[in-house]
Structures are given as C-alpha cells and as structure tokens.
C-alpha cells in the first residue's frame, strides 16, 4: 500500500485542536499590511492521521535498528538507546542556551569531560566541540591552517593538497576557505603517491587534507614520510577523522604528525545518523593551532568550592577563527557521544577498532575466497574494504548498482557504491564492530547468490529491487521535470500524479 502525502489526507478546517491555544488571540495592534492574507499550505489533518502517516512512513525505511547497514565511510554501528534517553533528560532538554553558566554546570561538565576524552583519543592538546558535522570540522581545520599562516605573515600559502580518494567535502571545504585544491593520485597499492606529493609541496602549500586509513580502506603506511614532506615545505597536516573507527585506541593522529583532526561523532562515537544528521565534526589540534580554535569552548576554573565550568569565547580566544553556530553547536549530539564514551571507557574504545577491523578482514577474506576481487587483496583491510565488480560487470553487464539493488531485496542495506571514484564498479563495505559473525556470513552468502544469478539471468538481477515500496526510480525525470513541492504539482499535474 502506498502512503499518500500528508497533504492529500487533509480536509479544509480539520485540526488537532489540543495542540494550539483554544482561543485565537487578537492581533489588531499589528499593522494590517503585515498580516498574512492566504494561510500557508500546511496539512489540515487530525492528530491520529499525523501519527499514522509518519509511523507508516518510518516503516518504509531501512535503518540500523532494522537492517545490516554496511555503508562504507559512514560507520553505521549500533546507536545505544541509553545515549538518546539520557540526552533527552529534562535538565538538558528544557535549558535555554543563554542561561547563566551557574545554572548549567552539569551540562558544561559533560562537555568539558568530552573535550578531555577527545584529546586523549587523538593525542591532541586542544578541542572545540562546536562544528556541527564533518564538513564544518573540515572548514575549521582549513580555516585554522590559513589563520596560522596569516598570523605568521605567510599569506602566499593558499594551496590545499587533497588525495584523489578524499571525500567530496574535502575539496569543497578547501574552496570554501578560498584555497586552491591540488589533487594528487593514489599509488597502485593504495598509498598516497609520495613522489607526486613531494613534487607539489612548496611555498604555496597551506596544508594537506588526509584521511587515514584512507577511503580506500587501507592504512597510510608512509604517513611519517607524508608528514615530513608537508611540514618540511612549511605546510600543516589536516586529518579527516571519518575513519577513526579503524584506529581508535591503536594509533594517535597527533603522533602521526597531524596538526588538526576532525572527528565525526555520528560515525565513530555512534550518535544517530537521523536520516541525514544531526552530526558533530569536533576538531582537535596540537598547541600550534590551539589559539585559532572555533569558539565557544568549555573551560574549567578550579576554585575552593570545586570546579566551575564556563564558556571561553571572544575575550579569552581573540585569535579564534570565530563562531560556526548560532549558539554553541549540536549540544544533544555531544551529550549522546559523551554517554557512549563513558559506556565504552578506554578498554571499550580499543575493542571498537579491534573488532571493526576483525569484521572487515573476515568479510573481505570470505568474499575473496568466493571469487570476489578486493581492490587491495595484499593489504590488511582497515575497518572497511573495497570489492571491485569490474570483471563481473564486464562478463554479465550486471553493475555495482545492480548488486546494490539486489541486496535490498535480500534485506541488507547496500554498501557505499562508486566511491571512492578511483575503483571501477566499487563497493565500499564497512561492517562495523557491532555486527555478529552470522550477519557477515549471511551478507557474503547474499553477494554470492546475486553473482551466481548475474551469470544465469542478468536481467533478473537488473530488475531488482522488487520487494520494496517502489522499484527503481527515474532519476532523469526527477531532475528534468522538477517536482520539489506538493503545491507545485497543482500547477503542472503532468509532473506526477498525486
């Protein structure tokens, strides 16, 4: 059964009366010209219709709570319910962000502890929790690097070196910060091409954005040499922490020579992905960049009566690159990450990277043994690995996309496809540490069955998915005949039937 749009279920004048004031207050003191003439096209439905509509819509989604979700580079691990429940305690939820610090000591203490633990997890000395997702964390990193060079009069340094395998947000961020992006290739065995790097570093190098392990799912073995090359040329090294799940408690970005790292709390520290956010892309820096950290930051003053926590802002951090959020960032996400980290503890963090890596290597081995082609079969998988379906596609015409759709019919969310773009017909598979072995075996079995079917009846595979609310959608039509709102359909009914 298709779930109609909420708008199509309404009737003029229908309302959920207990949700708004019983009596409409007068507004005749306001200038008549300012009063809206036609009401906005919001739904006119009952509370039961709203509950039913959105409960039914939720059931159409694949999610971690219902499916194995090995979406590479997204770390779709279990999001503990305790983090949600405790972040939504009234004491945190009902507090205005501008309340005096004296009223918010409990909240600020959680954030201060979180800052300290993130320093420990990265080996860095300064942390700011305010970036609201990885992309904003990257922005902070590159902006701090530029501020660092500007503070030293080094204004010529406007180039950011980005490996071709880097996530799209890296180059987009560099441009946003007014830098030129210099892309360098990746070698055949998955490492950054050191020679190419050594050629491009120079007086215009502001810094390099590196993900380690890279989005190819392999550890950057020449990290020391890379750091040395970049620092040698006067540049700084930025760490995209999206893949921290691979090395948590095993290696410290600071020790690798990175100057600044962002961490996606909604990946490594399991805050919910929420259908596309909210996340948090906190940044951690060594002492070189500490003055430039985005504000506000939580500071602690040790007085006689114990600790007093407070916000450090413009006055205390004059060289800061400034503010990134209307108040202080995604507070609720920070509290959820804090609860998760207190549940894990130091030993639990080490286990995260250990078992994420065990799961990835086991699944890679099972698939390789079944004849699939890992992109880097001589390498250890990190917390994720790449399978290239180039040969199967060549032999049967069945692509990585077709495999992805067929996996949906078998009850598995697909891995990341066609990223990083270097590897043809690429599946980037990240099982995470919270999946049991039986789930990995079932997933491998599903891929094997799909491949067998590809050789027997390619059309059958290409017709997937068949068991979901819709079959494959016409993306060209979606872009050509733009249908972005319900009310726009009234003007062009041909666009798509109600």
């Amino acid at each position, binding site marked *: 059964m298709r779930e109609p749009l909420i708008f199509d279920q309404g009737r003029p004048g229908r309302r959920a009366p207990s949700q708004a004031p019983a009596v409409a207050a007068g507004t005749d003191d306001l200038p008549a010209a300012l009063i*809206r003439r036609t009401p906005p096209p919001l739904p006119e439905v009952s509370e039961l219709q709203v509950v039913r509509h959105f409960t039914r819509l939720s059931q159409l989604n694949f999610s971690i709570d219902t499916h194995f979700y090995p*979406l590479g580079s997204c770390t779709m691990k279990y999001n503990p319910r305790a983090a949600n429940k405790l972040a939504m305690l009234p004491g945190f939820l009902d507090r205005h962000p501008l309340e005096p610090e004296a009223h918010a000591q409990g909240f600020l203490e959680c954030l201060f502890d979180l800052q300290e633990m993130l320093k420990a997890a990265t080996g860095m000395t300064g942390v700011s929790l305010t970036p609201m997702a990885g992309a904003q964390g990257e922005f902070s990193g590159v902006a701090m690097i530029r501020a660092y060079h500007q503070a030293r009069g080094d204004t010529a340094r406007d180039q950011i070196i980005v490996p071709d395998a880097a996530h799209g947000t890296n180059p987009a961020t560099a441009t*946003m910060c007014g830098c030129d992006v210099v892309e360098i290739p990746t070698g055949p065995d998955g490492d950054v091409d050191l020679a190419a790097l050594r050629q491009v570093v120079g007086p215009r190098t502001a810094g390099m954005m590196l993900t380690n392990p890279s989005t190819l799912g392999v550890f950057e073995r020449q990290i*020391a040499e890379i750091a040395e090359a970049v620092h040698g040329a006067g540049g700084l090294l930025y760490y995209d922490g999206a893949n921290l799940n691979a090395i948590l408690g095993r290696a410290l970005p600071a020790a690798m020579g990175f100057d600044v790292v962002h961490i996606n709390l909604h990946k490594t520290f399991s805050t919910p992905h*929420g259908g596309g956010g*909210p996340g948090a892309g906190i940044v951690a820096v060594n002492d070189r960049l500490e003055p430039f950290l985005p504000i506000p930051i939580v500071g602690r003053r040790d007085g006689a009566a114990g600790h007093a926590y407070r916000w450090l802002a413009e006055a205390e951090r004059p060289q800061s*690159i400034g503010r990134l959020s*209307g108040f202080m960032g995604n507070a609720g996400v920070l509290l959820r990450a804090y609860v998760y980290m207190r549940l894990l503890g130091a030993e639990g963090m080490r286990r995260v990277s250990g078992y994420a890596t065990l799961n990835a290597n086991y699944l890679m081995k099972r698939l390789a043994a079944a004849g699939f082609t890992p992109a880097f079969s001589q390498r250890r998988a990190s917390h994720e690995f790449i399978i290239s379906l180039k040969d199967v596609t060549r032999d049967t015409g069945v692509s990585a996309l077709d495999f992805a759709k067929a996996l949906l019919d078998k009850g598995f969310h697909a891995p990341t496809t066609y990223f990083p773009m270097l590897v043809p017909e690429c599946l980037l598979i990240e099982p995470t540490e919270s999946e049991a072995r039986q789930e990995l075996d079932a997933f491998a079995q599903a891929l094997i069955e799909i491949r067998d079917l590809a050789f027997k009846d390619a059309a059958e595979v290409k017709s997937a998915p068949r068991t979901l609310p819709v079959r494959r959608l*016409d993306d060209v039509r979606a872009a050509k005949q733009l249908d972005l709102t319900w009310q726009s359909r009234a003007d062009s009914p041909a666009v798509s039937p109600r």
Partner: protein
Amino acid sequence: MPFIPHTTDDTAAMLGAIGARTIDELFDEIPPALRVVGLPGVPVGLSEAAVTRLMRERAARNRATLCFLGAGAYEHHIPAAVWEIATRGEFYSAYTPYQAEASQGTLQLIYEYQSMLAGLTGLEVSNASLYDGATAFAEACLMAVRGARQARARRIAVPRYMNPVWLKVARTLVAGQNIELVELTATAGRTDLEALADLGDQDFAAICIPYPNFLGGFEPIDELTNWAHARGMLVIAACNPTALALLRPPGEWGEKGADIACGEGQPLGIPLSSGGPYFGFLTCRKALVRQMPGRLVGGTLDVDGRPGFTLTLQAREQHIRRSKATSNICTNQGLMVTAATIYLSLLGSEGLRRVAAQCHANTLELVRALASVGGITAPSAPFFHEAVLTLPWPVAPVLQQLAAAGILGGYDLSADFPELGSALLVCATELRTTEDIAVYRRALAGVLGVAVAA
C-alpha cells in the same frame, strides 16, 4: 565490552579464516612507532546504570527557570507525538537516503518538509535543511553571490539590528571568499531608508531583511525589497518561522517578492536542549534552485509508473561536484527536520497562526506589566513576539538577580547595541501565563527596589 557481539569462539574462528593469530596482528601495517596500547586520558567504562545515575545527577544540577528569554531560541509547546515518533529506530538510525527504494520514508518526509517550508515562506523551493539559522544565513549570502546578476558583486547589505551572532558566524564562514557584509544605518530601531542613498552605486549581491529584526521590530520590508530589486540585488529574508503563519511571507514582499528566505527552525518542535541540535531552513525562487546548497528531494516515477521520491540535482553537491559544489555540507539536521515536519502537520496553518498570535499577545501583556514598574519604558514602534524595554539601571546585574530568583529575564542588548542604552530584550511565548508574567513583574520590582501594586 559493550556493543561487541563476538564470543571467544566467534573471534577464534574469524581469526582462523583470516589467517591471523590475534586481533592485534591485523594492525601490523601501522608503523610500530605509531602503535599505542591504551588511552590514558579516558576513564574506565561504566555500566548503563552508572552512566544513568551520573547523567541524572548532572541534569538535576541545571536549575529549572521561568523563561522570558528568546534571542534566537524559543520555548514553545512541543506535542508529545513529535519526539515519540521522530526517535523511532527507522528515522533515528537511518542515514542519508542514498538508496531511494530503501528510504521512501525519509524521502517522502523531506518532500513534505520542502512543501511546508516553501509554502510557509511564500517561495517555491526548499532544501532538506542546513545546520542552524546562523549557517543558513551564511549559505544564503554565498548563494546570493553565486546567483547575483553582476558577477562581480561580492557585498551583502545587512541591517544593524540583525542577530549579532549570526553576523559573526556569516563573517567567519564567508571570510575565505572575500565577501563583505556591509552594515546599513538604522534609526528608531530599524533600517533608515534615507540613509540607503549613502551607499551610492556600490555593487551589492543582496540585502538581508530580518523579520522580525533582533529587537522584535519590523523593517520596511516592501521598500527595502523594491529598492534592492531596482539595483539588481537579490533579497534575502531571515525569518522567525512561527511568525510566517501570521505575517505576510517573504514571497509577498514588495512587487516581486524576496528571492531567498532562511532562518532558525528551532521554534518548529525542537526543544531548547541547551543550544542544539536545531536546524536551518533555506527556501528560494525556482530560478535559483541550481544555486541551492544541501540536499533536494524530488518526486518521480518508478519503472512501473508508481510515484516515489529520490534525491535530485545532486550534481550541485560535494559528493559529485567536489571542489565546485555549491556547499561543502553533507550530513545536515535530518532528525530535526523529521520532528519539525510532524510538528507542522500537527499544528497546521490555523494552529501555528494561533501559536504566533498568542506569543504576540503574551509579549504585549508582558511589556505592559513590566512597563508598569517605575522607570521602565516600553517600545513605541510595533513589535512581534519580542520587545525592547529600557531600564533605569544597567541590565546585567538585574538579569543576574532575576536568574537567582529562577527567572530568565531576557537578553542584555547594551553590549551589542550601546546606542540603545540599558536595553533588555524580553519575549513571552504561548507557554507563558498571566501568572508567570505577574511573578516576573513582582521579581523585577523587587530587584529594582520599587514597590508595585499587587
């Protein structure tokens, strides 16, 4: 070892299959010098019971207060159904709907959200959300520069009485792209139309018009809109979304209507939650759709002709256009959009209009009650939802004593806008009762040492 399902047998069998003796061996590609064994700064793991007790104690240390403070975050009623549904696992633990057939729930919800926000702002296109109001304003500025007819125009005109933090954030985010935010002269709490002439023929990509402005007052929206369009500028509206159920939307400003609208979505069903996560909304005219940052969901048909939804115009985005993307945003505020869409469905146009009208009526009542305390003057110009009172004493110490009495009295404007003197920005949402207002009045009189009639 919470959240790890591996038994000792599982681990042994898996290591056997891989051909490694221990898990540590799997990390042999990490140069030995870089390997660490523990994380000294991280405390030992706690049970869920222990973390629950810790967090309950810390949450209880945040004193409950009576809130008359707005300035960008508002304490509205949030129907119970909103978060009981938004935190269902299928919304809470899904990610960006890359596989459309497996994400029709999130995709259809975002399509409905886009319809509601475009309709609320009187414009034609809405994206799937940005981080918050401040970053939405910054992205609107970037979008306007991209979309401006004069390619060279890299200035944005901003009124003096805009949210001061939003301006700081925008300046930080556009700093790298030599875009300049130019402050317009204001008199009597709003932009001075005459002073516009002082700008001469400088190139501007756009003007931003806050609605209401930071003082709760009204900018000359029609005049400014027509003035900007006449100079080939785009008009950006920065709105409180609740107000748009009651007041004329940006799409109906001036002759041609504003081009872009942005703002903070927190009032639409998002709890104050100590500062976030909130969400930023961004809507625009159809003509500017290709300049829109962030995700867009479009309706289409599947191979059997059945209607469905999918991410569209992804070529604008970072995962396709990389360095030439309209914005670097990837993860946005999906869960907040889920809550806001349920909120707007439950309120509907009439319900949201009544919330806006009640906020206004309560703020009027608050202003009258506080102005009846000796020495306090009320604003003269019309205002909506928030208003500026002028005190006979410095604001900060008054607010401190009110806070000690459990009252969040408002926002001290004197630091950001010295010209306003001892100015206190107060706000009363639909949740504030006559009794609450009386409590504030009595406390304020007490703090100011002024006797007041009961």
